[in-house]
């Protein structure tokens, strides 16, 4: 079996700098490592080779010194390595990277299997894998937790979705992106390191790949980084001093007095929900889907439309007001009853692509549907929720549409001068906020994580009567009427054959908890985590975690808060021993943040409402004492 693995060299630490002029990454002079996520792909490739025979070839695109990373991959069992390096590749965005990798792979002969890590720790986009699959016209499966069976013609994989695991059968050749839980990457042996040092690393430049001049690197990229800045998160912080006991007492007092607020918060939300969503100029409302509009792809899960779709509609409504445009909610498959609630939450029209019923949304089917709709209606902006499926579909679709895509945006605004969508996202583990535009390609695509934006309107409205628009009928003037446009889709190729759903184990959902006791590396041992759990029980909350404890296996991934975990919006977020790196805080949309840390310089104190300088164990003991 011929296996390709994509790897990336990333900075050992995310304190990397961006060139202030070109806004591209300065890679020289910083210590580099193999992207930790890629080591799982390499390990899986080596294991499959041991099972089925064949060869493993690692590909990377990067500066000449990335050769060192390839030698490391050979040290743990890859047979060959290819380094794509050329000044003409510099400044590539994810799509330009995927295209270049695809061109190189075509030159080297297509493999049976391509394995990629889930994402890279510097960009955190998780886009190159699905984009590469699309560029090679191969099926792909993201977030693979286990490759159960594999032979020359097909494989059976267990994939993680937002609702637990599913088992899928996939025909080869295929591209898989793998999760950390798939294996434990081996360390190299002494002999392995020496093999790596002696190995030949093949090099390819632009000409070798056959890519046209001007189509690679920065010139070949659809997106442009227009601004980078160090993120500043400020809150007015109240320092709570004294012994642990006194600190606990004072904190309880403060939280008690804030309790009133929390109740108020609930009420306001409900009030907002029951009011009519803020509308753009009513007379401007169009009864047809005109080019240049804003689209929100509305993903449907087992329990209907995912909440993030409503949040995006809320945001889109605001953007549309500035653009004097309409908001279209796009459904691929599903029933039209779903359409009603979308209108109540900001959609002017609902566009429904009719596809055969599916057990699980298929990236290739949805890509084909959206390609057709986009081609017909020419939206200016397409927003998708950064759910597991959204993060897998969006890159594939962007590659099909040959447009730019920005992952995990935390800010979206319309540039008043150019009218372009300014997309802001954390990069380098949140150490930088990058603002990105896509000036020459349409639609401008972005994904947004759940809970980043707020929905407007609510489901509590009396459901309006659905109206059906086969073509473009006269528009009803009823404010809450639903305009549905239906489009029939042809059969498209699929990524996978659905086998079965493995329901998620009964897990507490940190995304919905009102009180989160969150533990980080500074928590100081299992006994303190146990106390945190006890405190959570007493306060009616749940324990969540920062990334290091998840990486080290102490806490399950389902509890991870942050850019690469879950976004949470509790009323109270009590952070214990969490330093408060931006990538963590990017996932915290809490009403009240309390930080407990021994280090007075911990960044988390800068974004906390209440700062407690204390050992976590002592603090917990004091909190539990009289709670």
């Amino acid at each position: 079996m011929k296996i390709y693995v994509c790897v990336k060299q990333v900075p050992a630490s995310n304190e990397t700098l961006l060139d202030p002029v070109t806004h591209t990454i300065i890679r020289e002079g910083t210590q580099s490592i193999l992207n930790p996520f890629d080591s799982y792909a390499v390990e899986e490739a080596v294991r499959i080779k041991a099972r089925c025979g064949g060869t493993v070839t690692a590909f990377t695109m990067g500066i000449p010194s990335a050769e060192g990373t390839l030698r490391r991959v050979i040290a743990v069992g890859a047979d060959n390595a290819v380094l794509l390096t050329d000044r003409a590749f510099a400044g590539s965005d994810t799509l330009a990277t995927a295209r270049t990798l695809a061109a190189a792979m075509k030159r080297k002969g297509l493999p049976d299997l391509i394995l990629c890590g889930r994402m890279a720790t510097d960009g955190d986009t998780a886009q190159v894998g699905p984009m590469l699959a699309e560029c090679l016209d191969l099926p792909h499966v993201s977030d693979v937790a286990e490759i159960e069976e594999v032979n020359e013609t097909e494989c059976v994989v267990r994939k993680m979705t937002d609702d637990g695991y599913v088992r899928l059968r996939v025909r080869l050749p295929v591209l898989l992106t793998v999760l950390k839980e798939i294996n434990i990457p081996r360390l190299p042996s002494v002999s392995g390191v020496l093999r790596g040092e002696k190995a030949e690393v093949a090099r390819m430049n632009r000409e070798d790949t056959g890519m046209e001049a001007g189509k690679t690197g920065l010139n070949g990229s659809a997106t442009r980084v227009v601004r980078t800045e160090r993120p500043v998160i400020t809150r007015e912080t109240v320092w709570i001093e004294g012994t642990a006991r006194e600190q606990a007492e004072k904190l309880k007092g403060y939280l008690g007095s804030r309790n009133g607020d929390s109740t108020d918060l609930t009420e306001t939300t409900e009030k907002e929900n029951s009011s009519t969503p803020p509308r753009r100029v009513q007379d401007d409302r169009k009864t047809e889907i005109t080019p240049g509009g804003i689209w929100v792809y509305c993903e449907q899960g087992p329990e209907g439309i995912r909440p993030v779709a409503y949040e995006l509609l809320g945001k889109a409504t605001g953007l549309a007001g500035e653009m004097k445009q309409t908001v279209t909610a796009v459904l691929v498959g599903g029933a039209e009853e779903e359409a009603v609630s979308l209108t109540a939450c900001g959609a002017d029209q609902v566009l429904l692509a009719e596809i055969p019923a599916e057990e699980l949304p298929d990236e290739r089917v949805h890509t084909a549907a959206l390609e057709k709709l986009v081609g017909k209606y020419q939206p200016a902006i397409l927003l998708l929720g950064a759910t597991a499926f959204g993060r897998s579909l969006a890159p594939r679709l962007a590659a099909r549409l040959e447009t730019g895509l920005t992952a995990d945006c935390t800010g979206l605004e319309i540039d008043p001068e150019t009218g372009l969508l300014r997309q802001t996202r954390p990069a380098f583990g949140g150490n930088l906020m990058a603002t990105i535009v896509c000036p020459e390609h349409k639609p401008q695509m972005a994904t947004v994580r759940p809970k980043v934006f707020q929905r407007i309107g609510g489901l509590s409205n009396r459901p309006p009567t659905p109206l059906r628009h086969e073509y473009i009928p006269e528009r009803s003037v009823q404010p809450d009427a639903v305009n549905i446009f239906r489009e029939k889709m042809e059969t498209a190729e699929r990524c996978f054959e659905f086998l079965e759903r493995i329901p998620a184990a009964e897990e507490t959902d940190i995304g919905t908890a009102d009180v989160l006791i969150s533990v980080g590396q500074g928590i100081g041992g299992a006994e303190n985590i146990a106390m945190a759990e006890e405190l959570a029980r007493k306060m009616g909350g749940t324990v969540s975690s920062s990334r290091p404890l998840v990486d080290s296996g102490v806490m399950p991934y389902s509890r991870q808060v942050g850019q690469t975990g879950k976004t949470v919006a509790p009323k109270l977020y009590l952070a214990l021993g969490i330093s408060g790196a931006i990538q963590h805080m990017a996932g915290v949309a809490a009403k009240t943040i309390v930080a407990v840390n021994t280090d007075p310089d911990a960044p988390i104190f800068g974004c906390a409402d209440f700062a407690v300088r204390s050992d976590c164990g002592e603090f917990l003991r004091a909190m539990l004492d009289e709670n």
Partner: protein
Amino acid sequence: MNLIRKMSAEYADYLFDESRTMGSADYIAFPANEEELAEVVRWCAEKQVPLTAQGALTGLAGGASPERGLVLNLQRMNRILGMRKDPDGIYYVRVQPGLRLAQLRRALAVKAFDVAGWDEESIGTLKEIAPGQLFFPPDPTEPTASIGGMASCNACGARSVQYGCTRAHIHALRVVLADGRIADLERGKQKADGRKIRMQTTDGNMLETTLPSFETPEIKDAGFFIRQNMDLLDLFIGSQGTMGIISELELKLMPAPKHLWGVTAFFPDDECALAYVRVVKGRPDPGVPRFPRPAASIEFFDKNALDMVQRQKAVTPAFRQLQELPENYCSAVYVELNDDDPGEIPEVLTALAEVLTAVGGDPERTWVARDALELEQLLFFRHSVPETIDLIVEENRKKEPCITILSTDMAVDDDHFDELFHIYKKDLQASDLPWIIFGHIGENHVHPNILARDRREYEQGHQIFEKWARDVHRMGGSISAEHGAGKIKRRLALIMYGEERLKELYALKRAFDPQGILGPGNIFENGEQV
């Protein structure tokens, strides 16, 4: 007085240390500074209440488990007080005893210090240093250990092969004596005159006495340190809170190694592993090439230790991330190396491969960690052994509460180590006890652990330890290289010192502690009767 609280159920966690030696106490105090610490000691002296000092309770010999009286817990005294540079360019940092090693390491690594109350010299010195430029070398297995606790038992840990024990990195101490007065002692300044001691306290008083007539072993030893003309501060390092309570330490820092990396190698039998260790330590072996670098640490794992962790992997989710062991493993040796230039690694590994092959190992059956991330995995593996012991002992205690950790840390010199290792194995194999051997083989002290399941096995374990103490005594070694005698190993201390010498040491202690209130039960078995 608010500072001193009656013992109650809420303080139950302060009655035992990592060894699970259960103690008892009537009072507990958490002083926040030296003044309060001295106040507590004065109160104890007045009321003749014995007191046991505690740091982070990570000790493995029961030294911090109280035997009646007052628990003097120093966890609140956890500040870094300042730093300076001497004319030779050596940096020093002043800390309180309750500071944890991990906190100090982190502060130095990322240069994050709470400078409230620092003097100008300290702040000026801090400005000079870069994050990660300096480090404090002692490396006990448990990084949450307190610095005061490390001093009190002269902890050493894995890297002592290269850097020596905690004692070598302590430049000055402030000590609260048994009557609450304070001594300020600096290395090279306050010394014994032959065997005569004249120690001035900060209030101008003079404490005069004579040192015992003998010298403690030259070998690494966690107990008392007695030499002619010795630095007086050394009396308080290794004496486990029986001579005075350390209230402040000045630590000598070293330039941090530029590039730390390591190799774990698996061997088909223990003899190959022992041969490898000899070569790594630089002892010539015919037919085996020289080892290419001095090692910063050398750690050993026997088959039982590897099997034990392997079994625990199925139970403890955190251990799932451990590397998979090669097939047919027997023992393993981890070697940590320092290099200025990671570019030299391939050259070193080429030489290492030859050594491995020559001693009967296999360069394929190794794990190489070339950067901090990979090294973490090797250290995680190393740490999983004591973690597993902890879990097993905790489990066994549920059936038999008298069980504690039974771990030894006896040390001998290079010439005697293989002999001692074979004695360990022979005695353990002859018993029907569950056991493992792992630890700091580079410094000739591995940790045979007996995982007793019931009272009989626990007592049998103690008997085996006493036999070994006699063997080690015969070889001129130490019964405790790093954990201290504490309470679990005080019978072994008696075997090592002999009754006469122990009496002399006790007389020295009583000269400093006339009422015998400091560290009851530590080192001296039932002090009054010695």
